[in-house]
């Protein structure tokens, strides 16, 4: 199937009523949780996993993907109007977006955020369409050593690109992998760390862990802080940016889209880091860098474009290699696996309806989001006025429902609460949860590919150094480790990246 034939087929899949409805629900829920601080796309997608049992695989993936890119749109609204990021990838938008709102320009800020997101989202879908098929052909040549070194690169990036102590991030990644070994050995099916428990024989569930670390712990921190959200009290008018706004935003949107898309492809990057880099880039190329942070529209346009483009980029490793480059994609990977579909190089051939359906749904979803975010902005503003005292019990009950519905086992609720408590303590002690979750998800695949590599080479570890692609991944991983030591700007940038992917 050629590119346009594939896209036409994808639209025929997406426009089927059930898939179109799934796309709408996904982007609507995504916008909703993007707007609401305290619950992010990871927890929401985990919550929706059990709901997808009754849906077709295509509709499920379309809905889940919609939640992710929808959250990027919604997050900007809260950043601009409340100065609290609705989700973590909108942190940078607070800097200039809120200042614009204070100056009476909330409308253009919201407008350019939505339009920039739309343009970047659409460009990134184009990127997926163009890059995924050729990458799939390359991925078919990957054996266990290539898979293992690619995962190693992913772990390296996620630990070295998160904020704070790298040693703490490495500890969390190792802990995540260790927790991932609970259950049956993937090769010999020998029980490990199960202590005779049938529940532990299935391993620790991804959903309770994610809901605990990202959902419950976030709520606990907010309860402790006593979150106060004050919506900027102004009438929002003039959502459509002026000609001057467009002139100043066009290049930042283009740069943010390109940067976000290509950084999003890299394992471990996610949607947050591109927003910081694109903001820093705009400041650097600007004729008036000193005005950044005082309400310049470029400071909204570029990061909003970057975070949306990154969501598209992150789909590429998942769809072509079957590897989740960040925590959100790990949940999406779970959605694939729940339906017995293995994403990877064979996806386009074996399930073209899913691949092309998801790609086409992202075009449709981006149009829906534009409609949801501009004309319905008043609705989202009203939602922001709901007190947190009402929201947090609902979020907690939803987390419990999500976990219990998936397994029907109250033990999983206890696991979720244990990880909720752990996540709360991790935040207190400055440990990032993202490396732990990503390593938990990918650890099993890393173990399998590592052991298969050793079996293939009869115990010769240098198999990782004798295959060009594997060696390249290893070298890049080492360069990533060394970069902060030798390149001061990288070091400075890393110090400013404050949050994990999922909030």
């Amino acid at each position, binding site marked *: 199937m050629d590119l346009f034939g594939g896209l036409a087929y994808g639209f025929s899949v997406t426009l089927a009523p059930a898939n179109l409805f799934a796309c709408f629900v996904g982007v609507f829920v995504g916008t909703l949780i993007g707007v609401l601080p305290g619950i992010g796309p990871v927890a929401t997608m985990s919550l929706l996993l*059990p*709901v997808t049992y*009754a849906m077709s695989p295509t509709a499920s993936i379309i809905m889940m993907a919609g939640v992710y890119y929808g959250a990027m749109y919604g997050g900007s609204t809260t950043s601009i109007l409340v100065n609290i990021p609705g989700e973590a990838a909108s942190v940078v938008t607070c800097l200039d977006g809120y200042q614009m709102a204070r100056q009476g320009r909330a409308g253009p800020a919201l407008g350019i955020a939505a339009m920039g997101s739309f343009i970047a989202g659409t460009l990134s879908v184009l990127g997926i369409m163009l890059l995924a098929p050729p990458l799939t052909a390359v991925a078919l040549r990957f054996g266990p050593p290539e898979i293992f070194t690619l995962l190693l690169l992913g772990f390296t990036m996620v630990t070295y690109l998160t904020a704070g*102590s790298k*040693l*703490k991030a*490495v*500890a969390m990644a*190792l*802990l995540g*992998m*260790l927790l991932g*070994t609970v259950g049956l*050995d993937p*090769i*010999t099916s*020998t029980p*490990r*760390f199960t202590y005779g428990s049938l529940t532990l024989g299935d391993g620790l569930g991804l959903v309770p862990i994610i809901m605990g670390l990202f959902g*419950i712990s976030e*709520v*606990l*921190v907010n*309860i*402790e*802080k*006593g979150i106060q959200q004050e919506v900027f009290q102004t009438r929002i008018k003039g959502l459509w940016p002026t000609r001057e706004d467009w002139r100043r935003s066009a290049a930042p949107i283009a740069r943010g889209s390109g940067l976000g898309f290509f950084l999003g492809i890299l394992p471990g990057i996610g949607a947050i880091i591109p927003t910081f880099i694109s903001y820093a880039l705009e400041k650097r190329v600007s004729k008036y860098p000193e005005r950044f942070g005082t309400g310049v529209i470029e400071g909204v346009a570029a990061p909003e474009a970057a975070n949306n483009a990154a969501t598209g980029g992150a789909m590429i490793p998942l769809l072509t290699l079957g590897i989740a480059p960040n925590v959100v994609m790990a949940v999406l990977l779970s959605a694939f696996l729940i339906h017995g579909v293995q994403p990877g190089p064979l996806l386009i051939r074996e399930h073209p309806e899913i691949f092309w359906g998801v790609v086409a749904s992202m075009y449709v979803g981006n149009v829906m989001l534009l409609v949801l975010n501009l004309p319905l902005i008043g609705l989202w503003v009203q939602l922001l006025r709901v007190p947190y*005292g*009402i929201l*947090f*019990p*609902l979020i*907690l*009950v939803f987390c*419990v*429902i999500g976990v*219990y*519905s998936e397994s*029907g086992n*109250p033990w999983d*609720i*206890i696991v979720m*609460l244990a990880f*909720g*408590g752990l996540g*709360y303590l991790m935040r207190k*002690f400055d*440990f990032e949860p993202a490396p732990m979750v990503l390593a938990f998800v990918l650890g099993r695949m890393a*173990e399998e590919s*590592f*052991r298969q590599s*050793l*079996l293939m080479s*009869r*115990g010769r*570890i240098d198999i990782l150094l004798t295959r060009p692609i594997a060696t390249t991944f290893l070298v890049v991983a080492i360069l990533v480790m060394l970069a902060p030591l030798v390149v001061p700007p990288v070091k400075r940038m890393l110090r400013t990246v404050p949050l994990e992917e999922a909030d």
Partner: protein
Amino acid sequence: MRRRDLAAAIVLLGFGVLAVSQARGLRPGSVVAPGPGFFPLGLAIAFSLVCVGLLVSAVRAPAGPAPGASGAAASGRLKAVATIAGLVAYALLIEPLGFRLATLGLLLFFFKALQGQRWRVALPAAAGTALVIDLVFRRWLGGNLPSGPWGF
């Protein structure tokens, strides 16, 4: 010495040592034929070594600011702990009492005990919310939620 980091490193190191001792009980095999214990043992050792690194860096780091002891912070922490306690009770009671009744109890706890709402606000709010959640998740979405001995 940074006490907070030191405490965290000691707890994690303890977990690492425990993991090493447990992983040794699994068959590690050899590099040529790695067994089920090969990867966990390697991970547990690496984790313990990194924890030693955390311990050393905590000892060598300058002392951090003393933790705040304000009344608001203590009250916030108490609320967070109470929330977790309420959820643990909810997890234990969700099957014996049924989803609707357990959810009503949990929401009452949040609205009345944690937020100090009046009964005339807390009770209808909790009952209404529990009913709507039940309708949406159990009736409409067909969620797998327990009914309890009284059929609700």
